[in-house]
């Protein structure tokens, strides 16, 4: 998604780095009035692929429902150019499930070992790859425990 001023008032885009990591970049640049929100679908539709020729709005809407149900994802971005703004916004905006997950992640970071790990990382300033490997490979020392075992996934 190219970096551009978006209809919701942010300059936003997504990039993929050479390692395949996708990064979302965004900065709020203006407050969008409700009037401009209502015009957003028409503006957005000009940047999206056109759907195949359909005889009615209902037919296009039916296609959208099919795509959404087949994807199994609540983040399907296969908008048609007839989607109302609330539907587009529903796909892009964070919902309660996202908020609950953020709070759960926050709770995990409050655990004592995680707090200790954060304190270590905040002062960890490797000057070379050897400094990194020294911490990672010295099993049994406290710093390795913090970097390696204090994880939710057990990796690293």
């Amino acid at each position, binding site marked *: 998604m190219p970096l551009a001023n978006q209809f919701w008032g*942010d300059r*936003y885009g*997504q990039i993929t780095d050479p*390692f395949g*990591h*996708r990064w*979302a*970049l*965004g900065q709020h640049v203006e407050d969008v009035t409700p009037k401009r929100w209502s015009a957003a679908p028409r503006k957005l539709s000009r940047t999206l692929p056109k759907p195949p020729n359909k005889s009615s709005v209902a037919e296009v809407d039916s296609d959208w429902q099919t795509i959404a149900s087949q994807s199994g*994802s609540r*983040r399907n971005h296969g908008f048609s150019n007839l989607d109302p703004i609330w539907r587009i916004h529903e796909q*892009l*905006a*964070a*919902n309660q499930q*996202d*908020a609950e*997950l*953020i709070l759960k*992640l926050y709770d*995990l*970071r409050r655990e004592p070992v*995680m707090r200790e*790990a*954060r304190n*270590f*990382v905040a002062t*960890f*300033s*490797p000057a*070379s*790859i050897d400094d*990194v*490997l020294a911490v*990672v490979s010295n099993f049994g020392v406290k710093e390795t425990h*913090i*970097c*390696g075992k*204090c*994880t*939710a*996934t*057990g*990796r*690293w």
Partner: protein
Amino acid sequence: MYGYWEMVAALIVHGTLNAALAYDTLQEMYFVYSIMQPYVEEFRQKANAPEF
């Protein structure tokens, strides 16, 4: 610690967690990544872990 943020990043990449909300609320993740970023490629080679 890094594994924790790796897990969070995976939630974002796979669409489980809203990317914009994560960007606004999990700034620590970028701080942690910035410490390791200069050494990631070399670590992959030396640790023989290209998927890291």
